[in-house]
């Protein structure tokens, strides 16, 4: 279908975009990669009166890696997928995710920040952002603030970005050398929404015990969910088959999926546990630990 008519505003800078959003309020939506918004408009699930296109805002098109990894609002998924550092072990969670979001063509336009703002219950970046403890930079009338991803993801397709505000960037802490991760996704075919998916990131102490763990699920609730019980179970422990099983069981319990053509509730809850266990084993294997 053809989308409903809208007014188009091309923003050449963050200031431009912000002024347009302040001006049009709830009627306006930001257009970045458009890979979720345009299909939603075509199905008339979204009917914004004004689109503020930020693709010409050069000050949003960046990926910087120094004290943190910071990804600007128009940086494409493919730019992360092709980043020179993405193959390094500490970034293995983002490496895995960057290769399974939608399909390779969609990833050439799609943006990470856009995925976070869209906050689809079956999103991949939202789930990874939880496990990696990312933050999102939001500009509002009172200035610019960083919002923890747990507070950013409010509900299905709803975030902490209020009317007239915009997300500028996502920031991921730089994982240390004893960190690895994994993203496990089951999908019926390339480009489909996840039947279930799990994001895992594990950091070890020098003695081999778990220093920090990030575990999150996709397609397991109104939006991506953190399995804090599994994280707590793992921290301080030496990795073991028992510890992995306990974390997987916690993930199954935490998962509250919707039954649909992709699977029943029972199946998806089971899958959440299986995928967390696989993700933990792969993360540990990447760190040279068999468990």
């Amino acid at each position, binding site marked *: 279908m053809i989308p409903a008519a809208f007014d188009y505003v091309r923003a050449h800078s963050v200031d431009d975009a912000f002024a347009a959003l302040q001006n049009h309020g709830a009627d306006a939506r930001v257009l970045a990669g458009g890979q979720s918004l345009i299909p939603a408009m075509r199905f008339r699930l979204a009917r914004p009166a004004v689109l503020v296109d930020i693709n010409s805002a050069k000050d949003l098109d960046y990926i910087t890696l120094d004290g943190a990894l910071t990804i600007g609002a128009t940086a494409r998924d493919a730019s992360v997928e092709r980043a020179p550092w993405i193959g390094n072990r500490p970034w293995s969670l983002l490496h895995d995710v960057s290769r399974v979001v939608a399909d390779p*063509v*969609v990833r050439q336009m799609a943006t990470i920040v856009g995925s976070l703002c869209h906050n689809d219950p079956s999103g991949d970046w939202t789930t990874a952002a939880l496990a990696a403890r990312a933050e999102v930079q939001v500009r509002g009338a009172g200035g610019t603030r960083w919002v923890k991803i747990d507070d950013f993801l409010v509900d299905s397709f709803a975030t902490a970005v209020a009317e007239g505000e915009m997300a500028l960037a996502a920031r991921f802490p730089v994982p240390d050398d004893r960190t690895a991760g994994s993203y496990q996704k089951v999908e019926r075919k390339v480009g489909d929404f996840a039947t279930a998916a799990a994001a895992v990131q594990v950091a070890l102490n020098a003695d081999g015990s778990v220093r920090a763990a990030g575990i999150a699920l996709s397609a397991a609730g109104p939006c991506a969910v953190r399995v804090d019980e599994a994280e707590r179970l793992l921290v301080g422990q030496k990795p073991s088959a028992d510890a992995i099983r306990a974390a997987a069981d916690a993930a199954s319990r935490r998962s509250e999926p919707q039954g649909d053509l992709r699977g029943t509730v029972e199946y998806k809850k089971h899958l959440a546990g299986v995928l967390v266990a696989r993700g933990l084993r792969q993360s540990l294997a990447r760190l040279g630990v068999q468990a």
Partner: protein
Amino acid sequence: MKVNIKVNGVAYERDVEPRTLLAYFLREACALTGTHVGCDTSSCGCCVVVMDGDTAVKSCTMFAVQADGHDILTVEGLAQGGTLHPLQQAFWDKHGLQCGYCTPGMMLTSYALLKHNPDPSEADIREGLAGNLCRCTGYNNIVKAVQQAAEAIRQPAAAGK
């Protein structure tokens, strides 16, 4: 809204509604019907074109106004002066098409893939084409065609049939 989009090296200045999708701009405003519309919902890849030389985009999921001031390459722009592009020649040689509906999208996705990865493995090609569907299921010959094209582009003189 006035847009000026360079398609296959030719500037097209047109007045479009902001909601006009790039695929329909190409087909209807430029009369370039080589860009096919398949699923119309960004799943099948039939409508893929290349933007600014190395970015494959599904033109059913981009507004024409977003392409204003950009360069678009469609299947009509692949051949130069009556000589087929190595991708077109390879799809011919390797029987990389059956009904042909998916072919423009397959070739343009491959064009962008080869810009970023001139020497792809078979797995790289299969992964790179994962967003393009061939309902004739002719994938094996499509992969062989992309392999031949990659070689031909890397070593123009040495590539034989």
